[in-house]
Every structure is written in C-alpha cells, then in structure tokens.
C-alpha cells in the first residue's frame, strides 16, 4: 500500500448562500484546492453530497459540477451517505491513491441546504433514519439525540448546563474562523433558554444546516514533493457502521460505528488517543459531541461534562476540539462536512490555521458520522 498525503485544500465560507447555486460553491472550493496544490492534473474526482437529489432535484452531480468547474474529461465518482458522505468520499479517495489505482485525486464535498424552508430541512434530514419504523412515527434526528441526552444525563449525572457549555465553547472557537457560519458568542443561559427543538435540546444545542463546499487533493509523497512544500500525511482512515434504527441498539450513549472506526484508524496510523493534538468531531448536537469524544477514547466515559467545564476541550486545553467551531458553529453543510474536517485539520498541521491555530499540534483526528452514527469515518492525519 502506498503512503497518501494531502497536497492542497480549499473551502468556501459555510453560510446561507442565497445568491449562489451548488455549482458556484463547488467551483470555488475546487479552484482554491487546485491553486493550493500547484494546479496538478487530477486523475479522478470524488464528489460527496447528501441531499441534492431531494433539495435541488439534481441527480448525477459528478458531470454537473465538474463540467461547470472546468475540470475537463476526467473520471468522477459521486458518493452519498447522508451527512457522512464527506467521510465516505475521503475513504474512497484515500484507497484509490493507496492502492496505486490513481496518482492524484480530488475530493470535493458540496451541500446546498438553504433553498428549502426549515420544516423541509427537518424532513430531509430525517431521511438518514429508519423511515419505516422511526421517521414514519414522527421521530426526528433531533429527537433521537434528545433521547440520548436524557439517557446520558441520567446515566452519568451530567447536567443540562454542561451540555450547553459545549455549545458555548464551539461558538467561542468559531469567532476566529473566517469560514464559520455562526461566528458569535453565546452563554449557557442563552443556549438553555433558546426555543426547544426536541426536549431537552434547544435551537442552540443544534448545528445549523448550511451551504458550503470543501475540497482536498490527495496524492503520494513523491508526487506531492514536486507540487508543494507543505504536505500532511493521511496516516489512517477507517469506516464502520451501526444499526440505523436506534431501538435495536443496546445503548444510546455510544455509537458502535465510531468505536470500531476509531480503533481501526488508531491501529492503522499507529497512534494512541493521547497523541491526538487537535480534532474535528461530528457534533451535530451538543450531546453528539459528548458521545463522540468518549467513543474516540479522547475522554473517559461519562466525563465529558467535567472536561468541558475544566477547559480540556478548549483550544489551549489538553484535547483541543473543533477549533473551527465544529458542526455547532462552523456549521453543518451535510455531505461536505467530512471534507471540511480534513481541510481544517490539514491547515492546523501545516500551521496555517490563522486565528483558530492550535499551537504545536502534530497529529490530528477527524470524525464524521451519518444520522445518529449509522456510519462513521475516522481519519488520522500527521504532520
């Protein structure tokens, strides 16, 4: 298996881009990534997207996006998997280079959520759930997370304030991120008192569904040396799954998919959890962030509330978590999220993350899930 490195990244601001279509967003990210990597010739494109066929009535995104971005007659593979599409595409691209099939690949994630009202967003996001036995009964993704939050608080005597404090930290991080959707600070009171989405979770416990596009270029270390001076190694990337329906899971405070993908990724990268210097995790809701940190073995079971209170997950803490602001405050551009995470950690390890820079980070982790962890991809990057 060949070593794989990242030679270029590009992102658009995560936002409600009412004035721009899905093609414009994709093109901006791709052009930025190509420029960042010395404009190499790409042998294969991977496009990740969750909901364009539902929101924009646009299927067959590959040719639709590539032709507009001026990418020429290059093979393209479209990859889905709801909000985990980005991670899935990163895995495919990695394997294409590692196996020797392709020399230089580009993964472009893109999502356009703002063309439909919130009510429809809730329905669209529910498509990642078991339609026949859960969504059909009026359960929502927020509802599943809310039930998990109630179980977590009861099982570990965690407080509502601790959950809210996670959102406070994410918003604080986002203030320094020029690509963030919600770059403003909030207080724990404001989080708890904002309008309810699924009791006990509120609007400010939830990540905003946004528009955005991110692109990363992967190649071999030998080729990368001819393109750029700043490469980051993809030391491990693994994916796993859990039951889609939550009633068949033994517990709501852990996701088997994350636990399994993380174990395999740590082993593949020969890295221990305590070596992770920075991470971008999938905090679709505040509670999802808690569960992720514990499933990734970054925080002990039931201790995330205390870790948040003690500043462990802050930018200058022991486990700097989501310096971008995470899904909570950078925003949640569906199938692009997993690609944003790779781009952000790459910038961190290059020391080019600007105001969000974590000092001295050498190893970074990304964690992207679909639904309530039906699928999970964990990536480990090294400087």
């Amino acid at each position: 298996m060949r070593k794989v490195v990242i030679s270029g990244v590009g992102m658009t601001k995560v936002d409600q881009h009412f004035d721009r279509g899905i093609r414009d967003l994709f093109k901006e990210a791709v052009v930025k990534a190509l420029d960042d990597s010395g404009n190499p010739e790409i042998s294969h494109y991977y496009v990740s997207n969750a909901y364009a066929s539902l929101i924009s009535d646009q299927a067959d995104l590959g040719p639709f996006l590539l032709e507009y971005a001026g990418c020429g007659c290059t093979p393209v593979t479209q990859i889905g998997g709801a909000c985990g599409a980005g991670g899935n595409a990163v895995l495919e691209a990695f394997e294409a280079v590692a196996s020797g099939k392709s020399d230089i690949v580009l993964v472009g994630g893109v999502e356009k959520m703002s063309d439909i009202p919130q009510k429809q967003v809730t329905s669209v996001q529910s498509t990642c759930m078991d339609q026949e036995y859960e969504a059909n009964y009026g359960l929502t993704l927020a509802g599943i997370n809310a039930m998990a939050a109630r179980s977590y608080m009861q099982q570990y005597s965690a407080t509502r304030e601790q959950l809210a404090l996670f959102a406070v930290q994410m918003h604080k991080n986002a203030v320094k991120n020029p690509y963030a959707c919600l770059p403003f600070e909030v207080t724990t009171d404001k989080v708890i008192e904002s309008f309810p989405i699924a009791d006990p979770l509120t609007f400010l416990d939830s990540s905003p569904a946004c528009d955005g596009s991110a692109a990363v270029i992967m190649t071999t270390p030998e080729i990368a040396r001819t393109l750029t001076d700043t490469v980051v190694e993809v030391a491990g990337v693994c994916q796993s799954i859990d039951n889609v329906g939550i009633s068949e899971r033994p517990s709501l405070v852990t996701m088997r998919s994350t636990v399994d993908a993380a174990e395999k990724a740590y082993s593949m990268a020969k890295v221990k959890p305590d070596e992770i210097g920075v991470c971008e995790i999938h905090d679709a809701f505040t509670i999802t962030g808690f569960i992720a940190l514990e499933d990734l073995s970054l925080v002990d079971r039931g201790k995330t509330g205390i870790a948040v209170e003690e500043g462990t997950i802050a930018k200058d803490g022991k486990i700097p978590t989501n310096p971008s602001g995470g899904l909570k405050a950078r925003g949640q551009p569906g199938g692009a999220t997993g690609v944003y995470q790779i781009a952000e950690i790459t910038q961190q390890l290059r020391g080019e993350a600007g105001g969000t820079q974590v000092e001295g980070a050498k190893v970074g982790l990304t964690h992207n899930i679909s639904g309530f962890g039906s699928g999970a991809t964990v990536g480990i990057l090294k400087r």
Partner: protein
Amino acid sequence: MSSARIWREIPQRYRLEGTKCAKCGTATFPPRSTCPKCGADEMKLYMLPRAGKIVTYSLIHSAPEGFETNVPYPVALIELDDGTRITSQLTDCENSEITVGMPVEMAVRRIREESPSGIIVYGYKFRPKVRKS
C-alpha cells in the same frame, strides 16, 4: 409513502409482529430474515408483548412534514416486557406526566394526519398502562 409500502407493514404496525430466532431465541423488531446475533436463517413469526416501560423520551417541537399540527408531541424508546425495544409516540397522557421507567402499553392510533398519497396511516402508539397484566 405508497399504498403498497403501508399495506405490507400492517402486521407490524397493527399487531407488533416481530420475529424470533429458532436457534438462539433472539427476538427482533422489526422482523428480520437472518438472526443478527447468531446468523441463522431460521427466524419465526413472534408476537411481541404489548406492554413495557419507557427507557428514554423526548418532546418533539420541530416536526417533520405531516406532524406539524401535533407539536409538541412525545416520542419514546420503550423496552417491552421481553426486553425487545421499540420506538413509538406516546398518547393518552399529558406531556408533563411522562417519566423514565413509566409502564406503558400498546394502542392503535392515527399516526399521520395526511400522507402524500392521501392514505391515513394507522399504527401503534403507547399509552400509560391501564390493562391488568
């Protein structure tokens, strides 16, 4: 949802028909053709118990299409008397009465106010336990 899709799920929705592995005894809901525990392809029809208790719950305020008029409505993860779990809406109770551990039982209720195909979907909801076991 299409009429065929609603029709083929009637045994589960109206009667809680699940499956049980003839080899290792694992019960599943929804029904399966292969046992998720031992891998045997010997799943037999199994009627789930209709009573259980609430494991965890939420009140949905931000509802998907078709459920907007009912907000806030309660949903719960329920553990039935045999240990099988099911997700369901709760009914016939005030939202403020709901607690973790509360005994509940199945009832058949209207699920969706209106489906795009015009069919009214009925199915199980769970209510505070009134029948004697």
